[in-house]
């Protein structure tokens, strides 16, 4: 490495730039894991992409533009189902997460034997990707809207519980301790001291989780848990126009929810 001679006659060596380690590590990991991904340019049929786009969004075969716009009317029931799933699941999961987060925050319940196992179970539930939860839910209660609600509830419960207990643990404890020392029991103290500090954070998280859950509605339906996604999986083999209409519906719904959540988040600040 280059050496510099300072005015005070001391010599300074430029230290080895650690970025090379990072780049090297990235390269090695990339090469190792690229073994799992086949790269065969000869088998690619890129023209298919254009054909699919046309088939999705332009009426083909015997269908007319009237038919195409008529499909939007068929989207009503699945759309309502999807909203039922996302909204209901988020709210129920968030409400259920509250007592569990309360029990696992180590500044509220000093007993580690309770808080640690609960945190462990929460981490477990959180690690399960949404789609596996959806399949699990269909095993439990059969296919249909109910399994969607169960899946979203479990998923929201996992995320909210963790975020909540982190929020509870970083809250200012002095009002809580003051209330406890003047004789209030833990629940009452929690309600007035901690809950009031958490409320805006809690609402922000609920909206964030709701946003995520609305985006999952496409996937849920695909495994049979109801909603717009089911339109996609039912029609993917023969009627691309319906699939295209479903895609546009999902698109609009997610954008609307995004705008709503941005607006609410700005209001909360």
């Amino acid at each position, binding site marked *: 490495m280059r050496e510099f001679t300072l005015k005070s006659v001391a010599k300074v060596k430029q230290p080895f730039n650690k*970025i090379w380690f990072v780049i090297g590590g*990235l390269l090695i990991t*990339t090469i190792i*894991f*690229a*073994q*799992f*991904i*086949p*790269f*065969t340019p000869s*088998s*690619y*049929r*890129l023209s*298919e*992409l254009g054909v*699919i*786009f046309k088939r999705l969004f332009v009426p083909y075969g015997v269908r007319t533009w009237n038919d195409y716009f008529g499909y939007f009317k068929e989207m009503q029931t699945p759309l*309502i*189902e999807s909203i*039922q799933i996302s*909204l*209901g699941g988020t*709210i*129920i999961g968030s*409400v259920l997460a509250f007592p569990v987060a309360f029990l696992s925050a180590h500044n509220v319940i000093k007993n580690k034997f309770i808080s640690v196992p609960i945190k462990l179970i929460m*981490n*477990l539930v959180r*690690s*399960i*990707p*949404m*789609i*596996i939860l959806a*399949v*699990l839910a*269909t*095993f*439990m*209660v*059969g296919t*249909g*809207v*109910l399994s969607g*609600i169960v899946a979203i509830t479990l998923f929201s419960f996992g995320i909210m519980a963790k975020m909540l207990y982190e929020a509870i643990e970083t809250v200012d404890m002095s009002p809580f301790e003051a209330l406890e020392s003047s004789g209030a029991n833990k629940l009452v103290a929690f309600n007035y001291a901690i809950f009031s500090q958490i409320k805006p954070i809690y609402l922000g998280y609920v909206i964030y989780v709701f946003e995520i859950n609305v*985006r999952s509605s*496409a*996937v849920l339906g*695909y*495994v049979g848990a*109801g909603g717009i996604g089911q339109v*996609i999986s039912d029609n*993917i083999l023969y009627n691309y126009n319906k*699939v295209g209409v479903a*895609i546009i519906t999902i*698109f609009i719904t*997610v*954008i609307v929810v*995004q705008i709503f959540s941005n607006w609410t988040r700005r209001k909360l600040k």
Partner: protein
Amino acid sequence: MYGKQPKRWIINTIFVVLLIVVIIFTFSGSTIKLTRLKNLDYTLGDMFRRIIKIQWDFFFGVGDYQFSQGIVHLVLETFAIGFLGTLFGAILAIPFGFLGAESLVGKKVAKISEVILLIIRVFPEIILAIILVKGFGMNAFSGMLTIGLHSIGMLGKLFSEAIDNMDKSPFEALDSVGANVWQKIRYGVLPNILPDLSSITLYRLDINVRAVSILGLVSAGGIGSILTIASSMWSWELLGTILLAVIIMVMLVDFISSSLRKKLV
């Protein structure tokens, strides 16, 4: 101030009423059979017992199965798709990040790139996967492209926010001593944003690896492909095996991602 605030109990009642309305709305409609909850298709105990019975042969791909059919292999493939896809997306998102930073390019260009990124972000991954599978075949490469393209949208937005919030003073200082463009970027901009960008990318890696399981449903590779089989066979044991592998992988990636991110701060 106290006089102007609405009474607390009014707000509380409104909230409770809203909650009840939402719950009623959720469970209305003829398509939901709540009775299913009372007699779950299997009892909870039976479910638990079955899901615990893990098929170790299948897990490791020994015995009757080849390694390439085993779950461990699929999990590695899942991680490969997630990792390479995120890397691909991150590299392509950097120019979008610069284009979206208001302080660098001005409001109009930033607005346009914000809208483009929004469209890419909102497009449901599963649909993108279906389209790419038709174009590139039912293999892991389509999966990697889906994750990559989707990540460009997500990462581009976060990158542009990070670049906006970057401390401009080293950049200006270098400018005033006469550095040329490359020197300004190399010594002024990069050391500032690389930790932020890497932290954002690691966060996205965590999320993306979970999302890869979805891709397998449409044959784009990864653990999702056996998920369809398990789902159609209604096999709790197979689901339990898959669940174990996925939980381990997600926890590992989560651990690596958060410990690396702590080092970057």
